[in-house]
């Protein structure tokens, strides 16, 4: 049962970021599993129209008005004509939206439901409930998600948050974590690439590096955008204290942001320029090269849904010191991490603990890479996402998908969202006293627009796009790297 899937989000390449690479990696792995995946996003500068990426991944860059930080203008209906056209051209069955701040994604889910398609939604971030922005976003999310078929969250904390924000049935929310491409985050002693520094052209796996002596330099790496919510204030407060109590420690700070000035001021005030190296913003490809220069990765973030970067750090063989916030405690096992409270004193304490643990060679960091490789892989993510697709399109029985409880068959039947307009309106009506009526109005207008489009631009006049030729090997899901490389080289 290969599906035709459309990933819709405002955020995609060429803009760098976590959501963007998530969409890309998931799409490639789904293509490897035999599905057809297209991506719909808005036009970026110099990138309009249709593009093909590696593996035959087709990207539609739809021209649209961008208002703020690559988010499009939330017009409820204006996306519908071109969206319908794309969906019919590509014979899409499942529309999968990403990221709750993307208005493209919300509109696409609404229109897809009107057109009778199955929908899924992935939430990548955490939101509070107090401030005005969150309240508005949460209402919008409730609007979209009251009729969505399934929701995917990247961590259990994220799931709790989304269930509360959108008043969802928890069984309709799956937790599928992010993953890392472990080959791109190898530690220094596993260096298959010839151009890597220090180890020259060696291809073989090196013997494990010699243990750290009591007086060797330990380098602590920090890679994060220097914003308030990334905990830069904690970092600024903690660095001088850590350096004061541990003379043989150096810092490497990568990233830029509004707090960079504060950080530099701290360095100048305490005359720490020779111990703290600031290398500014780096590209995602360079992250590994920076990481392998260190021994400890410090992550003082204040909120985090998943924290891909700490998985990348652990994959590079770094011992991780991080704050216990958001979904971070779920991500890595205890022997790879030291947790701290988001307090200056506790971060200093945890870092000191980590330094002494490394000095006494209690931590086997050289094994981290293989362990992380087993824990997180995009193939696994794609397999689990595929199960969600099977569940929402009825290839797995609802009893199996949502769990079977005796005497609850009619309840389980309710989770399967049928397309009849009156049932959809019922679901939207429960969203709130005024919001419910407004949402119902939107849905009715959307439906009328759909009928109008069916008459004005009949389906028969829309050409069906030819799919990318599928590879011949059977779709067993265990597609290897070599297969992908071969296919990638043909494009």
């Amino acid at each position, binding site marked *: 049962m290969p599906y035709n899937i459309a990933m819709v989000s405002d955020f995609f390449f060429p803009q760098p970021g976590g959501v963007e690479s998530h969409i890309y990696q998931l799409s490639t792995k789904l293509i490897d599993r035999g599905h057809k995946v297209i991506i719909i996003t808005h036009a970026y500068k110099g990138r309009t129209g249709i593009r093909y990426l590696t593996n035959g991944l087709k990207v539609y860059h739809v021209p649209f008005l961008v208002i703020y930080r690559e988010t499009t203008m939330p017009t409820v209906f204006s996306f519908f004509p071109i969206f319908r056209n794309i969906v019919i051209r590509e014979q899409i069955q499942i529309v999968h939206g990403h990221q709750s701040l993307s208005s493209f994604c919300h509109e696409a889910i609404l229109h897809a439901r009107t057109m009778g398609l199955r929908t899924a939604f992935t939430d990548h971030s955490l939101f509070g409930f107090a401030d005005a922005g969150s309240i508005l976003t949460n209402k919008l999310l409730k609007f979209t998600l009251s009729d969505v078929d399934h929701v995917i969250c990247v961590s259990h904390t994220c799931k709790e948050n989304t269930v509360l924000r959108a008043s969802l049935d*928890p069984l309709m929310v*799956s937790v599928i974590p992010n993953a890392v491409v472990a080959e791109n985050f190898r530690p220094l002693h596993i260096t298959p690439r010839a151009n890597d520094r220090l180890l020259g052209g060696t291809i073989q796996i090196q013997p494990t590096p010699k243990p750290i002596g009591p007086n060797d330099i330990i380098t602590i790496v920090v890679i994060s955008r220097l914003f308030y919510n990334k905990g830069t204030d904690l970092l600024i407060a903690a660095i001088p204290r850590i350096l004061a109590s541990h003379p043989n420690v150096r810092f490497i700070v990568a990233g830029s942001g509004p707090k960079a000035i504060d950080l530099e001021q701290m360095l100048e005030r305490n005359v720490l320029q020779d111990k703290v190296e600031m290398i500014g913003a780096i590209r995602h490809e360079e992250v590994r090269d920076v990481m392998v220069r260190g021994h400890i990765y410090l992550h003082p973030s204040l909120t985090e849904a998943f924290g891909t970067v700490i998985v990348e750090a652990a994959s590079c063989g770094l011992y991780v010191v991080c704050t216990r916030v958001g979904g971070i405690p779920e991500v890595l096992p205890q022997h790879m991490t030291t947790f701290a409270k988001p307090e200056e004193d506790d971060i200093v304490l945890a870092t000191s603990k980590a330094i002494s643990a490394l000095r006494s060679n209690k931590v086997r960091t050289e094994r981290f890479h293989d362990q992380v490789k087993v824990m997180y892989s995009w193939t696994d993510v794609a397999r689990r996402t595929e199960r969600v697709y099977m569940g929402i399109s009825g290839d797995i029985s609802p009893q199996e998908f949502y769990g079977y409880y005796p005497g609850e068959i009619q309840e389980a039947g309710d989770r399967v969202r049928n397309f009849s307009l009156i049932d959809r309106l019922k679901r939207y009506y429960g969203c709130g006293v005024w919001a419910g009526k407004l949402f119902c109005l939107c849905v009715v207008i959307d439906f009328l627009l759909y009928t109008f489009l069916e008459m004005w631009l009949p389906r028969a006049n829309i050409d069906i796009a030819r799919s990318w030729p599928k590879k011949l090997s059977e779709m067993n899901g265990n597609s290897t790297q070599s297969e992908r490389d071969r296919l990638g080289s043909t494009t």
Partner: protein
Amino acid sequence: MSPLPDSPPPVPPPVPVETHPNRTGSLKPPSELRALPDPTRLAPEDAYYSPSLLRSRPGTATYEEPIRPLSGKAATAASVAALRPPPAVPGAAARKENRKLRGTGARRRRKGAWKKLLWVKQSYPDNYTDTETFLDHLQRNPRVRPYDFWPLVADSTVIVQHVCSVAIFICCFVGIVQGRVSPVSVVCWGSVGTVVGWILWDWWAFREHTENRRAAERAMEGDDGSSASSMTSSVNPSHQRSNAQKENQVQGLGLSIAQNEPGVPLRRHSTGLSADSFTAQDPASPPGYANGIVGPFNSQTWQLNNHFPSFLSRNRQRLSTVKSAFLIYFSLLGLSPILKSLTKSTASDSIWAMSCWLLIMNIFSFDYGRGEGAGATKFPASLSTNAAVMASTVLASRLPSTTHVFSLMLFSIEVFGLFPIFRRQLRHISWTGHIFLTLALVTVAGGAVGITLRGGWAGAVVGSFLGSILTALTMGGCSWWLISLQKYKNVVSGPWDPARPVIRRHWD
């Protein structure tokens, strides 16, 4: 993948509670609530190091059972939060033993307990919802203080005072415009009140000052040795609790010394500054401050220095206050012809609407706080004063002569600029005086409204009577309303909220 239905055990096993600090009760000190949840809850080591389960869990029966309310049509936040089992009962220990024995059933060993971890491959489906741990870090209304009725009513007197003084101002204006009241008499009465208020205020300041000095002397005699250390420690910006009392005196003195500098242009400014010097929160140390204190004083010379400049500074301060009063007086006198014709070309309707809005803005943006702490600087109190002065400026153009304009402007400065300072100080000094002032203001405002609407002394009596009753009813009703609205308060917080970083500011 999904758990198959087993026959439920006869007794539904209790839920272990000892690992759930957030669930057992809501009565916790706020400091604990602020902290992150118990670290043992999510600690991954029990999953990784020991295959045997540290936290024993119920079998399939509890998996099915509490999920039933979940599958309702709209699982709202409240219902999700409500599905969590009730907190522990004291007699649960014995039953827990029982469950532990039963817990090692074949099914348990086969499936393993679900863990709230992402790195572990679990045999549960991705949409599995563990009813025991799901949302168990959720806190509702963690920092809500319930209001009490009478303190709320007492606090609302501040608003009543301000609204009353605005009403009095409006009535005076209406009286002046309609020619019922002479503007000169209004401003005279206002000025007399202001002068009386200032004398009172000055006397309070003097009394507090002498008390402070006496206390300082007592402290000096009590411990000669440590006084020097307290003085030096006051130079250090880090406040130490034990020395807080002495620091207050020292800083208060320091500020009043600093008042010697000439060039405090407005009377309002000078009074505001010295008012601060007596509450002495956190002064931005002026140059005189450090000079007056740092230095090798022993206690004797320090006391001498203490006596002299205090009298001098008080007199100088009075002098500067009088000076700035005259400054305002004469500049207003000079400005009044300009103000009179400033908005003459604007239609009267626009003037009424504009002044209405400006006065409403004044009432809503007025700083009703105590004028201390972090909240005092958060909202610009100047906005409200500016709005009021602008309202009176706009209104002044409807008056016939320059004397009228001058009187109204001076009166508005007295009412909106100086009176709030006096009221705040009065509330600080004596609560009875505050209550009496409130009563007087309510009566006068009611009477003024009565005269304006009906005219005559009968109107005044009826107006003040009705006004008092209405005010009392409104105060009580609004307080009761606010308290009854508290039950709708639903603040949800959990691990998804951004953490508040705790930083010791010693690097600044």
